[in-house]
């Protein structure tokens, strides 16, 4: 059991941290060039030059392009109207049609930004060209060119994801271990033997907490080592603070697990309930989707999500080097949460039925 507890989550850490990235690459790009001019050619070359786009083909008609998108063969279709070059030169403006497959909304958003950037840069280039033709004496005005890229290419996603995934692994393992534990003893009958002893309820719960707490801290340690050695994640903040916070956080999760375990009669029931909370906690943790963009009622719910606090604290301490005062709100909420959950765990453990 012990190797399973340690090896599987760490494999997950290595795999997920490499795979779970928001970067959108290898975008399948097609175009319909109705103009066939040097300008349209130049625009397409811009896309070909980008490392994010795989320029697939030139579709002769819009209908063919739509059917290719329906089949999932292309993600983005650029339609260049006829007279594109003529309009650009005469009217100094032209329209382009962009169709993006938005089955995956997040990816579509990113793709839209990429496309816009490329067209903008092409635009600037054209402007320069046009100015040189029409008004050779006037040098192009040096327009402010600080790009407002919301997507920062140099941002290393692993740095961002590794602490978050580590949080998930520590949480999942400890929640499931604790959640299965007491109910398993109910199933095999050893709990009855414990119940006829004079053991105090709090002693019993502390006895259950302790080994899992050690396992959780062990997981954190190995996970942090991997983060440092394999992913080269910076650890700006205090390790002591990270361990201190985690030691309390794990108690929240263990208390919750034991509470679930006390309330259920079979391991299946416990598993379902643990999963129910796990999925909600993960998806509402701010790890994959920003909490700020959730509806208000959901934002209120996230206040009860311990994973949210852990993700925040890990990122703050590890990446920003936040100190005790910075994480104090999260720390206090976590301590209160730990007291409540473990109180419930003790309360829900019934020696007499």
């Amino acid at each position: 059991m012990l190797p399973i507890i340690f090896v599987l989550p760490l494999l997950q850490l290595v795999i997920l941290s490499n795979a779970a990235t928001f970067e959108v690459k290898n975008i399948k790009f097609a175009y319909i060039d109705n103009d066939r001019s040097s300008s349209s050619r130049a625009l397409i070359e811009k896309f070909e030059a980008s490392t994010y786009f795989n320029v697939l083909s030139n579709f002769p008609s819009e209908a063919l392009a739509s059917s290719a998108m329906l089949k999932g063969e292309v993600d983005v279709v650029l339609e260049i109207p006829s007279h594109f070059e003529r309009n650009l030169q005469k009217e100094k403006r032209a329209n382009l049609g962009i169709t993006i497959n938005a089955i995956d909304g997040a990816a579509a958003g990113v793709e839209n930004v990429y496309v816009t950037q490329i067209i903008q840069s092409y635009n600037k280039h054209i402007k320069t060209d046009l100015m040189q033709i029409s008004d050779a004496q006037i040098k192009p005005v040096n327009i402010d060119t600080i790009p407002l890229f919301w997507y920062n290419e140099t941002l290393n996603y692993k740095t961002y994801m590794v602490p978050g995934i580590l949080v998930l692994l520590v949480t999942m393992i400890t929640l499931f271990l604790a959640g299965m534990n007491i109910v398993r003893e109910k199933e095999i009958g050893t709990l009855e033997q414990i119940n006829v002893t004079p053991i105090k309820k709090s002693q019993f719960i502390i006895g259950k907490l302790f080994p899992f707490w050690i396992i959780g801290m062990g997981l954190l340690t190995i996970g942090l080592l991997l983060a440092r050695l394999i992913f080269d994640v910076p650890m700006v903040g205090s390790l002591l603070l990270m361990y201190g916070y985690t030691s309390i956080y794990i108690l929240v999760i263990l208390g919750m697990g034991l509470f679930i375990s006390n309330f259920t009669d079979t391991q299946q029931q416990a598993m379902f309930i643990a999963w129910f909370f796990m999925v909600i906690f993960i998806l509402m943790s701010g790890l994959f989707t920003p909490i700020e963009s959730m509806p208000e009622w959901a934002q209120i719910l996230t206040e009860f999500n311990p994973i949210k606090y852990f993700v925040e604290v890990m990122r703050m301490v590890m990446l920003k080097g936040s100190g005790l005062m910075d994480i104090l709100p999260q720390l206090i909420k976590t301590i209160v949460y730990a007291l409540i959950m473990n109180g419930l765990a003790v309360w829900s453990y019934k020696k007499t039925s």
Partner: protein
Amino acid sequence: MNNTNVIQAEGLTKMFGDFTAVNAITFEVKKGEIFGFLGANGAGKTTAIKMLIGISNPTSGQAHVAGFDVSTQAEDIKKNIGYMSQKFALYDDLTVKENITFFGGIYGLTKIKIKEKTKELIEDLGLEEVANQLVGSLPLGWKQKISFSVALLHEPKIVFLDEPTGGVDPITRRQFWEMIYRASHQGTTIFVTTHYMDEAEYCDRVSIMVNGKIEALDTPKELKKQFQVDSMNDVFLKLARG
């Protein structure tokens, strides 16, 4: 309450919804006796035991075990009793020694005492070779003997045995009853349930439970006389058939 009565039940009742598992049973068990608690499957023996050992609250009626009330002083009762359930309930994934250390610890025995007890128990049961083996890997007969010894670890006043010899061979059963007698000689009160009527003959007094009620309670000898039969088996059949 009579000082010589270590268990005293009055109208003890347990209901699950509309079903009355134990129906107002009244009896007492004297200090130092081997009390046989007989009954067919589903007669309510285990439910009655669970009330006496303080892990199930009675619906009505009352009972005192070792001088404490089962409804209000269950934790005090637990310090004074040992219990062996019909289902083997030591930790399969701990060794014999570890189980002894663990339960000794829960009952608050000192380290020295635990060491002493471990040595004594392993020698008595001849478990030297398997002392460091996982309990789960041992044969049932051995497991039952270990469970019984663990139930006696903290030298309880009363020990409750719920079908301790279910599924074990006749030789082991005989050895088991020798252990029971030894404990009884040392002053422990034994409360034992069984299906084997030959075992009922070994008891000082027996009660026979039918459909949640105690239908007969006396010494095996008196019961046989009362029902005019030769064996406890016949007593049981007469009662259980109604």
